[in-house]
């Protein structure tokens, strides 16, 4: 027994000693290998710009794109006839060096810059503008509605484009800064299956080709694209304007905001597009700039009367509006890094100055509920997607709203859903209370009514049940809106202010906040600013 045990139990020195030697050797080899990388040297190279971003590309076809990464991509590769200035208000020349607007705001004549060239060297002509705008409308992609204002486009000569609108619209120039209205090389695109014909939604086959090629006039050209991995742009050496600062721009797909922040700190990325306010607090490097800026996005609460009979009574909706602790909601979800809103349109847009935000007044809320015969309270169901638009955790927000409702006697049951399921239920008009979000396509208050207004054809009015409950329609709004669009300057400000007061009085859309955008980038990157049309404008970026 002793002998057997002795044989079984060998000295550990022999085996243990060898193991120790191997461990030391492996550790040394690993340290040698990993320690030789010089990432700061890589970060110092100024010929490549690396953007860490959650790549949400749905397409690279200008007529079909509708995502954040798409907008940034488009600014580098395609150009619009006019551009938005750094103040997000001023309209600057783009492909057009000048323009004329008729007094009644229906006819816009653009004079193209004769120096403008596509990446293949061919001139940008009026026919390309006409073709691109018609294609956007006819392909019926995600942004086709942007071309709805245009009735006809004429190209009387290669340098002149005349757009005639269906109705007066003084914000048309602002609409044209939206990236989807960029100009595409019609000859090249048509060779590869693109069509601007009326049946383009059935006959256009260029989308696949456009995943690997671009046909724009911008300072960059598409070099390669791998979905959810990376997208590369190379400098357009034949660019007709100021040469691009970078030889290459790389969009690197990094879905996790903390990983993006780490890449910034280590120098592996120059810009991180999805670092939210909370993740940004973990960045300590002196080489990284963290800059919260006001953005043109909004988060709001929708009350759809079709989803619950109680909501058909305006007093109940008004009570809900008074019940909300708006600043408390911003504090709970964004740590205070958000702005109160005065209307269902970003602050600073025409008509918003001088308006007051909705009040938080629980006593008034209770009074209104009493007048509506609901002194004992009521029960409502909120359905919402479990996501974080613009950094706002909707679950936390709805829990805060639930608390606010409870204070005035409203029991709010919460039902978080996967976003696709929630969307299906909302589209089927089975939702009464839900949070939603909105990102502006351009600087202009004209976006508000077709989206939020209680008028026929409005997006939210459909879910609210305007067809089923005709009383929901705001009869003043259509005329007021048309007048506001037809006017300019102070008159337009005054009219849009009235438009927003009408919309707020409907208490269907309750604007909650405009989350600040946290810009995070290496300190040697210049030209960083948040753009209303495009989030980030690539041609403006360079390194010090």
């Amino acid at each position, binding site marked *: 027994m002793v002998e057997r045990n002795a044989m079984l139990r060998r000295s550990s020195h022999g085996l243990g000693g060898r193991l120790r030697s191997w461990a030391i050797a492996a550790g040394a080899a690993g340290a040698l290998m990993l320690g030789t990388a010089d*990432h700061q040297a890589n970060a110092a190279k100024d010929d490549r710009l*690396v953007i*860490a971003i959650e790549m949400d590309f749905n397409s690279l076809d200008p007529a079909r794109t509708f995502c954040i990464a798409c907008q940034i991509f488009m600014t580098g590769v395609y150009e619009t006839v006019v551009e938005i200035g750094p103040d997000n208000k001023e309209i600057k020349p783009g492909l057009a060096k000048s323009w004329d607007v008729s007094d009644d705001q229906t006819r816009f004549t653009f004079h193209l810059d004769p120096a403008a060239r596509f990446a293949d060297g061919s001139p940008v002509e009026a026919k390309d503008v006409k073709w691109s705008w018609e294609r956007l409308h006819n392909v019926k992609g995600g942004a*086709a509605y942007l071309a709805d204002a245009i009735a006809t486009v004429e190209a009387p000569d290669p340098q002149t484009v005349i757009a005639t609108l269906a109705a007066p619209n003084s914000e048309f120039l602002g609409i044209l800064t939206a990236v989807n209205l960029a100009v595409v090389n019609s000859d090249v695109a048509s060779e590869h299956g693109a069509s601007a014909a009326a049946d383009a939604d059935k006959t256009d086959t260029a989308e696949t080709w456009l995943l690997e090629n671009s046909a724009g006039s911008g300072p960059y050209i598409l070099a390669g694209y791998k979905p959810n991995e990376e997208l590369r742009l190379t400098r357009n050496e034949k660019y007709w304007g100021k040469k691009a600062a970078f030889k290459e721009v*790389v969009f690197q797909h990094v*879905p996790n905001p903390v990983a993006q922040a*780490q890449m910034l700190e280590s120098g*592996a990325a120059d810009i991180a597009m999805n670092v939210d306010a909370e993740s940004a607090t973990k960045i300590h490097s002196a080489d990284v700039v963290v800059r919260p800026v006001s953005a043109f996005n909004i988060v709001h609460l929708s009350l759809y009367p079709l989803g619950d009979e109680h909501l058909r009574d305006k007093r109940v909706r008004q009570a809900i509006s008074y019940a909300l602790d708006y600043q408390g909601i911003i504090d709970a979800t964004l740590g205070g890094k958000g702005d109160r809103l005065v209307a269902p349109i970003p602050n600073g847009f025409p008509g918003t100055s001088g308006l007051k935000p909705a009040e938080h007044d629980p006593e008034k809320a209770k009074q209104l509920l009493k007048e509506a015969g609901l002194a004992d309270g009521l029960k409502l169901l909120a359905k919402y997607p479990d996501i974080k638009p613009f950094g706002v955790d909707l679950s936390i927000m709805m829990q805060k709203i639930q608390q606010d409702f409870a204070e005035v006697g409203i029991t709010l049951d919460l039902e978080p859903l996967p976003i696709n*399921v929630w969307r299906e239920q909302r589209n089927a008009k089975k939702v009464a209370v839900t949070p939603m979000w909105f990102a502006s396509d351009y600087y202009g208050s004209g976006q508000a009514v077709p989206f939020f207004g209680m008028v026929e054809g409005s997006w939210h009015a459909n879910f609210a049940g305007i067809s089923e409950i005709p009383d929901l329609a705001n009869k003043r709004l259509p005329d007021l809106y048309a007048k506001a669009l037809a006017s300019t300057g102070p008159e337009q400000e005054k009219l849009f202010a009235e438009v927003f007061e009408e919309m707020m009085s409907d208490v269907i859309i309750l604007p909650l906040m405009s989350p600040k955008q946290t810009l995070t980038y290496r300190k040697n990157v210049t030209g960083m600013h948040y753009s209303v049309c495009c989030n980030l404008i690539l041609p403006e970026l360079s390194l010090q």
Partner: protein
Amino acid sequence: MMRMLVRRLLATPMLLLGIVTLSFLLSRAVPADPLVSIIGERQLGDPEAVASAQARWGLDRSIPEQYAIYVANLVRGDLGTSIRTKRPVARDLMDRLPATLELTLAAMAIGVSAGLALGVLSARFKDRAADHLARAFALIGSSVPIFWSGLILLHLASVRLGWVSGAGRLDARLSPPPEVTGFHLLDALIARDVTVLADALEHLALPAIVLGWAVVGIISRLVRASMLDVMGQDFILMARAKGASEMRVLTHHALRNALLPALTVIGFSFAYLITGAVLTETVFAWPGIGSYAVASARALDYPAIMGVTLIAGLAFILANLLTDLSYLLANPRIRAA
């Protein structure tokens, strides 16, 4: 053995058809519409745009018709076009498979070798410090959430120590090697690009360690238990009596016999990692099939979901087959039977 192989191969198409059918029915049962990925939220209110998109993607056809078209295309090797990426699903998967295989193979190499080593160590030094430490290490790897360990290691190695540059397969400031196999390591070797090779290794190391660590636990536990059972047997005593060194006793005699139960786990771990390494892929921005699967599921990208399911099914069938084959090779008693 040959008969077993042939039987398995003949059964594979039917198995895959069953998997595809089930996946098809389940994905269509979800009460949601993939149209938003095609035309966006705003256009969902335009009946013309909706009708056009439905016709373009075949979503206006009945479910049985969609199924028949899908299977007919599948037989021809066409997995359809991804609603989300707008590219052939087969191409998407082929683009991502090398990344997944590269990560999985590296993770398995680390996990299996560490698991075996720790299992042997634990058994050899049973109830002593080495055993406790090895088991604790393995347990932590299996228990700690991957997204946490991944982010912590990434922070330490990338931000604090500067050993790795960050997420992804390669530093974005480097151009990928000319694609031959899709494996960055192999392609860099073929192109003799030392810079890219070193960078690819650097980027592979952390996610492979994190993922490998997750499988170490189960492998080492199995090996330990199996080793303890085998080391108590008479043939081990005989081996020692004949003067065999401790290393030879452990590896040549004990481990070979103790390995069999671990083979099953190794096989299934490999198959699972092919499509299941989603969290690691997310943290490290690794463009593999796992993250593709999640993005496809979120977008209700039916063709892509079916494609990923096929790959996953194939992976498990193959893993199962290879495991059985390895049993035959490892155990002469099964061969003889």
